[in-house]
């Protein structure tokens, strides 16, 4: 099977800092992949290179067989690469409805979906359990609901690859269980790449795990393999759980 996304020698330097340093990475269609690693390992920079928010210093990104290294972020979104932000960035002064209407009307304009804006919006809100809050201003929703709204916006983009940057940050334990079910459901028709610090969530969700350290891939494997990996223990898991 051909990978959905690959990177070759992908690097990004900020001055002398090699935030991402010659990363070769491949993601198979339909998988749930988690990226873990200590703070400053280059995880967010790496997914920002994939989504096009920042440009690489060198290397290339290939999505579904075509080179997208030079493609601006908004065009990658139209190809099906969606990104949800680490820091919640819903449109606080717009209603939940309007927040989701923006990605829905985008896919309608591109011809990737059919139908009406309203029905598309309500479907995405229902899937995330926010249908009864459609008319509320996003800024007045609880933090957990804002994170869910962010996911609803990602879903409404009809992504083929959904990149979630620390999606469970700030969620209550009860909300996390729902969130795990939601990601599993999303993964039925999309590939999911998530950066996550919450180890129980990673172990439950991920098919495979990629461990970053100092801008490089330290290890990659199934949750069981990563748990057993001594290097990872030293670099990351040991430090967190020790």
């Amino acid at each position, binding site marked *: 099977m051909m990978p959905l996304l690959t990177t070759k020698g992908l690097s990004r330097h900020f001055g002398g800092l090699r935030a991402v340093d010659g990363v070769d990475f491949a993601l198979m269609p339909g998988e749930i992949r988690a990226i873990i690693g200590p703070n400053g390992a280059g995880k967010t920079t790496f997914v920002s290179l994939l989504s096009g928010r920042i440009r690489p210093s060198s290397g290339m990104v290939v999505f579904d067989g075509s080179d997208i290294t030079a493609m601006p972020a908004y065009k990658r979104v139209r190809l099906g690469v969606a*990104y949800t932000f680490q820091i919640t*960035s819903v449109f606080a002064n717009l209603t939940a409805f*309007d927040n989701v209407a923006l990605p829905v009307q985008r896919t309608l304009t591109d011809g990737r979906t059919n139908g009406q804006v309203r029905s598309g919006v309500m479907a995405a809100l229902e899937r995330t359990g926010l249908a009864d809050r459609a008319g509320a201003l996003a800024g007045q929703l609880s933090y957990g609901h804002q994170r869910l709204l962010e996911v609803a916006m990602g879903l409404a983009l009809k992504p083929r690859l959904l990149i979630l940057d620390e999606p469970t940050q700030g969620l209550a334990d009860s909300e996390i269980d729902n969130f795990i079910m939601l990601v599993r459901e999303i993964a039925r028709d999309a590939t999911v790449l998530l950066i996550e610090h919450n180890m129980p969530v990673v172990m439950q969700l991920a098919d495979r795990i990629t461990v970053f350290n100092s801008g490089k891939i330290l290890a990659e494997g199934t949750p069981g393999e990563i748990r057993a990996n001594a290097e990872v223990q030293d670099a990351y898991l040991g430090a967190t759980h020790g």
Partner: protein
Amino acid sequence: MRDASPAKTYALHIGVIALLFALNFVLPDYHQGLFARIMTLAVFAMGYNLLFGYVGLLSLGHAMFFSAGLYGAGLTVYHLGWGVPEAFVAGVACGALLALVIGLLALRTSGVAFMIVTMMFAQVFYLLILYFAAWTGGDQGLVIQQASRVIAIGGASFDLTNATVRYMSALALFSIILLVTLAVVRSRFGRVLVAIRENEERTKMLGYDTVANKLAAVVASGAICAASGAAYALLFGYVGSGFASVQYSILPLLWVLLGGAATTLGPLIGTLFMYYVTDITSGFTSAYLLIVGVALILLVLFFPKGILGSIRERWLGWLP
């Protein structure tokens, strides 16, 4: 729009238009003339509001779009002897074209740099008008004769110097632009513009080419402001460089801030308010600008979102 109720919204806007129509028959001559002027300039404010209120781009150079319309219409009538409708279209086309060129250049910047760049372009435009005084009349301006300001449709002819014809023409333009603005801000395009104002980076990550959307908004805004300028030249018969000066870039900003940025009816209310405060106070004292200034400061202190913006925030959340 927290409570989307299109029927109520359209009823309100049609009601305002009907009220302005009725006022033609009850206003004394002086106020009838003043209202025609206010409605024409409110179109300028609405064009400015589209960019400033909805997209969040603060331009300090919109006098150039207004005067592109003013001169585009005025010079074609004066020098080429064009009829009123052709001259109006020429004015709007000049404004749209100018906005396209300025937009392509100025949108490479944002924030304070955008304000300065638009202001500098407007200053260039102003100086060009003075430089080509042989055609533009320089700071004296040009007076467009009554004979050139008659529209002949079929057998009937409408003299734009007639008070009622002038009032109705201004009202017609105002109504069209008001309803167009309302339709735009309620459209998908309008939703994208507001999203750009709120968070441009996020809007990009939803798959929108924000630069192209901003450029479209600059052109639409420039064309509407030019329509106001073209109408002003044809209705009031005077074309002058004063309308291209920096004062006419600041005025629409004041009108919009007073009435309420990002409200469809705010530009009318702001323009109306400023005109009447100036008109009334200048009847009492020659230091009327001092009183206007104090009124502005009080409004900004107590109604920071403008008259209609504050009403929307406190009582009528459904106002567009």
